[in-house]
């Protein structure tokens, strides 16, 4: 359904347009003055921009629309389980998300082709950045699927996904800076919040540091969000 629906293509065009502008802006700043970081690591600093609008757009329909139209009923009367349905939706959205990100690889190809200078395309941060996108994308998409399992209204699902992602990415970095966490009693909480800093993860990945604690954070978060999605769908079946 994802590949035949018009909203997918709108999301894709928006994504490529915005990321194209971001990339062009970065190059412009490089041409104006020398910079410290490579273009790739700066480019991935903007990962939150597409995550905030594209993940909700890609995932908001997946379960909410099925339930609103009633096609969830026809789907679940075939020999498939709720788990398979949720995993299928998640897999499709994740595949598309990665496909779109992979297409930004073209930007770097064009840069290398025309600049003819390998210094611009630093392989380390580039690969690190894509690995970060692939790992964090699991959690972001799972959160979107979860939001979609809660409502039969696409708009509510989309806004829910946006709010959850905003809370995860920006909210947690705000919480980290709160003075109240400096209290001795709240020390474990401060440590926990410090582990969950998405921007910090990105920096580590870009430098080539792959911390298993960070991997565990995304993987366990994904599994949890998917389990809640399955429960969300089944709870609606049980209680009408």
């Amino acid at each position: 359904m994802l590949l035949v629906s018009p909203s997918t293509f709108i999301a894709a065009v928006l994504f490529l347009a915005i990321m194209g502008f971001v990339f062009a802006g970065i190059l412009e700043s490089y041409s104006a003055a020398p910079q410290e970081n490579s273009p790739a690591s700066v480019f991935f600093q903007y990962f939150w921009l597409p995550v905030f609008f594209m993940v909700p757009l890609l995932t908001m329909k997946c379960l909410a629309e099925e339930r609103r139209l009633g096609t969830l009923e026809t789907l679940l009367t075939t020999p498939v389980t709720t788990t398979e349905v949720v995993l299928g939706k998640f897999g499709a959205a994740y595949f598309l998300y990665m496909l779109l990100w992979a297409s930004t690889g073209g930007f770097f190809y064009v840069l290398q082709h025309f600049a003819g200078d390998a210094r611009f395309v630093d392989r380390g941060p580039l690969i690190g950045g894509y690995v970060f996108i692939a790992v964090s994308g699991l959690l972001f998409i799972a959160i979107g699927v979860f939001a979609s399992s809660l409502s039969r209204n696409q708009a509510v699902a989309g806004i829910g996904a946006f709010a959850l992602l905003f809370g995860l990415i920006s909210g947690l970095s705000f919480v980290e800076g709160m003075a109240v966490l400096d209290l001795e009693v709240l020390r474990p909480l401060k440590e926990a919040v410090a582990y969950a800093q998405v921007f910090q993860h990105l920096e580590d990945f870009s430098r080539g540091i792959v911390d298993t604690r960070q991997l565990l954070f995304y993987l366990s978060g994904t599994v949890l969000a998917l389990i809640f999605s399955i429960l969300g769908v089944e709870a609606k079946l049980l209680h009408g």
Partner: protein
Amino acid sequence: MTVSPPDDSAPAIEVSHLVKAYNGIPAVNDISFTVGRGEILGFLGPNGAGKSTTMRILTGYLPATGGSVRVFGLPVASRAEEVKRLIGFMPENNPLPEDMRVSEYLYYRGRLKEVPRSRLSVRLDEVLALCDLTRVRHRILGQLSKGNRQRVGIAEAILAEPPLIIMDEPTIGLDPHQILIVRDLIARLRGRMTVILSSHILPEIEMTCDRVLIINRGQVVAQGSPAALRREFLGRSAYELEVAGDLEVLPAVLGQVDPSLRLEPPLSPEAGQSIEFQRLRVVTDREDDLGEPLLHALVAAPRLRVRGLRRAEPSLEDVFLASTQRSWDVVDGAPRPGGA
């Protein structure tokens, strides 16, 4: 690739003491029935009677609150996966994904229902031809007419050739011509598949179904063949007469033929002589046909002129009204004015 049911001797469906409550309010309240193999069963009932809920429980989509449901001997509650392979289901209003094309949708459903790829394309052509959808196979589902949408739903239900087909209101919103096509389609399934369908259109049920189950307020209020239900609920046959002349002798003439024959409503005292032909209704408790002796007696009566005599067939609608009325009475403890 007909899916074969595991247990050859079990009936297609066995429902016993089925209960389903939503937030403590019972939608289905202790329903029991059995459907034999190859039978076409019609579900009748007013809106909110529990028809759709019962069908959804049969398909394994909704869990029941209590009781047991077996499909070809398999308990739906614990072996839902296997049961789903034996059922083709078309839900109420037949929801379809709006953006897909007809053939794409049916192909995707076929794969979901585990029809092998090699078999699927052949089967797809068969089903499209059977449901008269070949012309629209490349159209987008969201742009189809209501009749075509319903036919896509039926095509989808029979696609994997399941031994049991459940259809919730397959003829809703169709014009008479399309209803005829759907009825033909269902008739073609007779003997090959067990079919359960619900409908509001009573002649529809009467024409297609071997047996009827009337549900009201979550309970079975009547079941049997349409003819048996008529006997049970209306209990008597009726004849319609068109007579003129001296109507006062009519009760006596009727009495000679059979003592149970009587006019309903009784003649008004001022009827007397009538030059105009009048339509009168005669009822009897006897089930055998009294038409011929009645006609002889009327013709032989010197002061009566007869123009017509017809046995009045009570429709399923009368049965439906009578049975649901009876269950209202049982539930409420008092007759409701104005019927069900």
